C-alpha cells in the first residue's frame, strides 16, 4: 500500500510542480507588472491607475461569492481573471487556457496560504423574483432604510456624504469612493442581477466600506434592492453623430421637458495623456450630450456624474467643462487636433466653470496657445443634483463675430468635450477628454417627403389603368 502511495506521489509530484512553475511564469510575465512580483500590489503600474492593483499577500479579496470574511472560491478568482474588473485596469484575460488560469489561481493562493486553509462555499442563490414596479419601489424604500444613500447618494450616483470623509479608505490604506450605481460599466463586481444580489449586497466587497448585508436584510429584501439598482442603470448610447432637432424656443432650464424628447449620445472619455501633465487616474468616465436649435439659437446640454461638486473655494480647483469646435467648419476631412487644436487649425473653446457658473469663449491653437475671445457670445447655466451635473451652453447660430464659426443647418459639425473634476485636482491639461464627434442641426422635414411618395403611387396606378384600357381594346385574345 505504501509503495502504491509512493508511486502515485512520484507520478503526480512533477505535475504539481509543473503547474506551480507555470503559474509563477505566467504571473511574472502578465500580472506582476501591476500586482507586483512579490504579490504586494506594488507593480510598475501601481501609481498610474485608479483603483490600484490588488495586493495578494494580505489574503483579502474584494470580489467573491462566499460569505463575508471567508476566502473566495477558485471560481471567484477565475472569474476576476476571465471577466476582469470593469471600472479598473484589470482586463478580461481571454487568451489563457483553462489550465493556465488554474495554474495562476494556485500561484495567487500561495501569496497567502493561511487564508485558504478553510475553503468556503458560494452563497446559495435562489431564483431571482420577477421584476415588478412594486418590487422596485420596495427596493427604493430599502435603499433609504438601510442607509445605502449615506454612501451612494440619494439617486445612487456615489455622491453620498460619507464618501467624502477623509478616513474613507480601504484595507490597503487607499482612498476609495462609493460606486456610482447608475454606470454599470464601472462596477467591478459585476452588474447583472445575480452579481448585485449575491456578490455585492449579500457577500459585500471585502476590505472596503461596502459591507455584507446578509445578516441585516432578508433574502427577498436583498433581491428587491438588486432590482432597484438594476433599474437605476443607464444604457450607454454610443455613436459618432448627434442629431439636434429644431424647436420653437430654446430650453433655458436643465429640467425642461424638451430634453427628455431629444436624441442623445454618450461619449466615453479618458484621461488626457498627450501633453504634460498627463492624467492617468481620472474619475469621470462618460458624458451624455444632447442639443436643440431654434431659428436663431443653439442649445447643447452636457450631463455627467461628478461625485463631489467643487466650486474652487475648498482648496481644490473648480469643476469645469469645455466644448470644442473647429474655428472654421472644415470643407473636407481635415480638422484641428481633437484636443485643443494645433498651430495650423484653431478650435473655439466654450468653457463653463462651476465657480462662476457662466461661460467664456477662447480660441486655442494647442494647449499652450489659448486666448480669450474679445467678443463673448456663449451663455451657460447649470444644475448639480444628486451627483449629476447638467450644463447648458447657448449661442446664437450666427454671431457676426469673424472669429466664430456659424452653425449651418444640415452640416455635420465636429465637436469634442473636456471635463474637469476639481476633487481629483483636475485643471489645465489634467482633465478627461473625448474624441471628435459630430453634431447636426437636422433640417425640418421637407414637405416633399410627405407629398411625393403618394403622388408617385397614384401616378403609377393611373398609368396602369391607362395601359390596361389601351391594351384591352387591341390585344384581348380569349
Amino acid at each position, binding site marked *: 500500500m505504501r509503495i502504491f502511495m509512493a508511486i502515485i506521489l512520484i507520478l503526480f509530484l512533477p505535475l504539481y510542480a509543473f503547474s506551480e512553475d507555470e503559474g509563477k511564469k505566467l504571473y511574472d510575465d502578465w500580472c506582476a507588472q501591476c500586482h507586483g512580483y512579490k504579490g504586494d500590489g506594488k507593480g510598475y503600474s501601481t501609481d498610474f491607475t485608479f483603483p490600484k492593483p490588488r495586493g495578494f499577500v494580505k489574503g483579502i479579496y474584494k470580489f467573491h461569492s462566499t460569505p463575508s470574511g471567508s476566502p473566495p472560491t477558485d471560481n471567484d478568482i477565475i472569474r476576476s481573471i476571465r471577466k476582469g474588473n470593469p471600472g479598473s485596469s484589470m482586463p478580461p484575460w481571454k*487568451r489563457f487556457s483553462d489550465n493556465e488560469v488554474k495554474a495562476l489561481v494556485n500561484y495567487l493562493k500561495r501569496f497567502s496560504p493561511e487564508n485558504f486553509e478553510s475553503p468556503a462555499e458560494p452563497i446559495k442563490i435562489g431564483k431571482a423574483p420577477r421584476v415588478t414596479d412594486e418590487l422596485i419601489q420596495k427596493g427604493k424604500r430599502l435603499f433609504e432604510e438601510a442607509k445605502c444613500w449615506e454612501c451612494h447618494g440619494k439617486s445612487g450616483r456615489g455622491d453620498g456624504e460619507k464618501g467624502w470623509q477623509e478616513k474613507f479608505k480601504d484595507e490597503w490604506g487607499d482612498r476609495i469612493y462609493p460606486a456610482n450605481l447608475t454606470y454599470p460599466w464601472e462596477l467591478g463586481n459585476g452588474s447583472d442581477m445575480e452579481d448585485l444580489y449575491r456578490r455585492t449586497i449579500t457577500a459585500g466587497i471585502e476590505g472596503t466600506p461596502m459591507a455584507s448585508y446578509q445578516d441585516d436584510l432578508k433574502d427577498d429584501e436583498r433581491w428587491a434592492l438588486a432590482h432597484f439598482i438594476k433599474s437605476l442603470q443607464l444604457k450607454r448610447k454610443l455613436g459618432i*453623430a448627434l442629431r439636434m432637432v429644431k424647436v420653437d424656443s430654446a430650453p433655458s432650464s436643465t429640467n425642461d421637458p424638451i430634453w427628455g424628447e431629444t436624441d442623445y449620445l454618450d461619449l466615453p472619455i479618458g484621461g488626457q*495623456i498627450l*501633453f504634460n501633465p498627463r492624467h*492617468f487616474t481620472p474619475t469621470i468616465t462618460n458624458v451624455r450630450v444632447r442639443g436643440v436649435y431654434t431659428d436663431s439659437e443653439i442649445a447643447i446640454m452636457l450631463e455627467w456624474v461628478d461625485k463631489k461638486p467643487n466650486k474652487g473655494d475648498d482648496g481644490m480647483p473648480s469643476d469645469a467643462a469645455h466644448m470644442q469646435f473647429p474655428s472654421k467648419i472644415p470643407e473636407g476631412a481635415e480638422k484641428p487636433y481633437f484636443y485643443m487644436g494645433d498651430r495650423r487649425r484653431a478650435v473655439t473653446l466654450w468653457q463653463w466653470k462651476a465657480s462662476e457658473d457662466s461661460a467664456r469663449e477662447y480660441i486655442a491653437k494647442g494647449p499652450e496657445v489659448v486666448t480669450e475671445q474679445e467678443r463673448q457670445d456663449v451663455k451657460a447655466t447649470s444644475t448639480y443634483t444628486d451627483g449629476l451635473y447638467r450644463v447648458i451652453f447657448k449661442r446664437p447660430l450666427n454671431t457676426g463675430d469673424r472669429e466664430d464659426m456659424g452653425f449651418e443647418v444640415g452640416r455635420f459639425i465636429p465637436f469634442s468635450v473636456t471635463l474637469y473634476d476639481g476633487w481629483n485636482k483636475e485643471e489645465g491639461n489634467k482633465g478627461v477628454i473625448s474624441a471628435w464627434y459630430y453634431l447636426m442641426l437636422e433640417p425640418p422635414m421637407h414637405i416633399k417627403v410627405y407629398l411625393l411618395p403618394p403622388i408617385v403611387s397614384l401616378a403609377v396606378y393611373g398609368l*396602369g389603368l391607362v395601359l*390596361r384600357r389601351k391594351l384591352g381594346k387591341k390585344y*384581348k385574345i*380569349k
Partner: protein
Amino acid sequence: MAIIYPIITLLGLMLSIISVIKRSPLFNFIGIQIALYGGLKGVGLIIPPLPGQVILMYMVMSVFAFLIYFSIDDKTFKRFLEPIRSVFVEDDKRIIRSLVFFFVPILAGFITYWEVKPRFEPPVSARIIHPEPSTEIEFRGKTIRILGLENPLRKDVTNLPQHIEEGKRIYYQNCLHCHGADLDGKGHFAQAFNPPPLPFRGTDTIALLPESFVFWRVAKGWRDIPEGSTPWDSSMPAFEDFLTEKEIWEVILFIYEATGNKPRTW
C-alpha cells in the same frame, strides 16, 4: 450579411434556367438581372466592394443590353411581352392583376420615399494606418535618420533581458491605458479614442513594420503623420516629450518580445 449575395445570384440563375426550359424570355430576363446584381454585390466578399454608382451603371447597361437582345427577334419579343400583356387584360389573371395594381404603386411610393427622405450619414474618413515615415527627424535637438535605423540595444546581448524588463516598466506606465495590459489594443481608456488604439498582437501591425518605423511612430506620435492618416484624430502621443531615445528602444524591444512578433528586417 454579404453572404446572401451569392445566394441571390444562385436564385437568379435558377429562375433564368427554369425560364429557358419553360420558354419564358421575360422571366429569363428577370433572372439574369437578379443574378447579375447578386454577383456585383457579392464580389465584395473577395475584393473590396464596388461602389453603389458602379453597380448602378452596370445594371442599367445590362438592362438595356438584354432588352435589345430579347427584342431583336419579333417572335421572342412577343413571348417576352406576353406575360405582361396577359396580366393586364386576360380575365383569368384577375387576381394577379389586382395584386400588381395594388403592390406596384405602393412599391413605387416607397422607393420615392427612400430616395427623398433626409439622410443622416456622418462623414467617414478613410485613413492610412501605416503611413510613410519621415526619412529624418529631430529628436530632442538631435537629428536621427529613420531610413535604415536599427535598434542599437539588440547588439547589447548581455543586457538584453534588463532592457526588455525596463521596456516592460515603460510600457505599463505609458502605453497600458490605450494599448492594454495584454497588448491587444483594449486598454481601459481605449474606448474614449477614435481611431481606436492599435493592438500589437497579431500579424498586421508591428509584425509588418521595421523597428525604425516603430521608433518614428512612438517618438513623433500624431505630430508627424501625413494628412492622409488624419493626424487630427490620432490620440497617439509624441513620446519624445516623455521618454528618452534609449527608453523608446527599450519599450520597442518589449512589445516585440511580449507578443512573440519579429520586426520586419527587409
